[in-house]
């Protein structure tokens, strides 16, 4: 099961998907929590200072 989702943020639009197993049932709350976790992890990266050049 693929659930596409997107968020508009000050850093741009984050478009992602949850690729979930078909044999597991998730509640809407669980799905929303997974989506939020994805967003939070992405925001932590894009809002961080850029890495040093190598």
């Amino acid at each position: 099961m693929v659930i596409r989702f997107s968020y508009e943020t000050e850093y741009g639009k984050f478009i992602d998907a949850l690729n979930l197993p078909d044999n597991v049932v998730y509640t809407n709350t669980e799905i929303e929590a997974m989506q939020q976790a994805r967003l939070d992890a992405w925001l932590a990266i894009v809002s961080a200072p850029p890495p040093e050049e190598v």
Partner: protein
Amino acid sequence: MPNRYWVGGSGTWDSSSTHWSTSSGGASGATPPSSVDSAIFDQAGTYTVTLGATAALACLDWTVSAGTVTFAGTMTSGNFYIYGSIDLKAGTVCSFSIPSTQFLIRGSGSRTIKTNGTAFTGTTTLRFYCTSSTGLTFTLLDALTCYAVDLYTLSTGSTELNLNGFTLTTSAVSSPSAFYMNNNTTLNFGTGGILLITGNGATFNVAPGASITTTGTGTIRFNNNSTFYGQSKVFTGVTLSNGGSGTNISINGSNTFNGIENAAQPCLFTFYPGTTTTITNFNVNGTAGNLVTLRSGSPGTQFSIAKASGTVTANYLSIKDSAATGGASWNANNSTDAGNNSGWTINGVGGSVTLVLTNTNLSATGAVGNITIAGDQTIFVSNTGLGMTGAVGNVSLFIGTGVIVGLSGVSSTGRVGSVTTIIIQNASVTLTGLYATGVVSNTPLNIWISVNTNQTANWIPIAT
């Protein structure tokens, strides 16, 4: 296809690794995977796989299906070749760093990459590299976040990266390129895909002389000071977006885009002198006090922006050394003409006026911004002496039930914006003596309007 399964917890992945088995959870001691063996990490538990500093690693598919695995290490030489698809379980950590051009996702055919939220946080460039005349297509199954991406083709065939409508985020700074396209490569956005480049000093590079293609519809957005080296290519379906407040995007080459836009202001677009950037949509606007600046990379030498038809109406720009061409009508309101421009109609930056109805003697010697008269009340503004020597912005009348409005004596030697009248019912509006020596925008007055003929030849006909 033979598989290799990682067993025994934490360890180093190199040619002498003892952590491989030919079966899931089986005895260790198998040879490490090669280009025809999938590398599968399916054991429970938390462990770290360190990439050998000088190792030559390869696998077909790279799959993490269980456990919490961290891939770490810094390669000083060697390489890591993946000949198949990538499927990483949620919670996987990829913090390894590999010298540029030595992490190659190569081969041919159709492949996928599914990260399940795993970001490549090390300074590793993901190089998608077709090595066969049959071509290589790599399709994202979810968002991908990494340091940098290269698209390469060895000699024949072609390499396509299909964003499939997802966000690809890269964070590299000046070197290597945040995104690089070599010869015979395609960046397919799918529907609405986004290439987000966040590094300060980052570059988007097309190899000189390369044949490249963009398909689908999507956005290349820069959130920091960056340079777009497009090599004068056509970027079909692509909108170039300046996404950072205070960010300078330099556009090098005479490129063609679907559109150009800004997502934050103030910001700066710098165009290489003598180039022509051709667009279909120009959605570049600042706000009062936060202008979007258009400049040439060489002050005094013009750059061109071309749009074939239609009308561009931008706001709050500062424009210098710009030739607006292509057949469209180019207008910049509330904007600053910093010199050496052509093809633009640039109207001054408007200030703001607070209209106090009991004080009807209002005048200004500079540019005047929007004038709004609002309220469900009786308003009569007559003989107000509204006189401006600069541009006048929009005049909006929001009129409630039973309101009687008269507006007279508004004059300007500059441009007058649109006059919008919203009438609910039983209102009576008289608009007289509104005249200007500059251009006047459309005035959508439809009912209960009488218009004085005290107008100059520069009036645009008023809809009645």
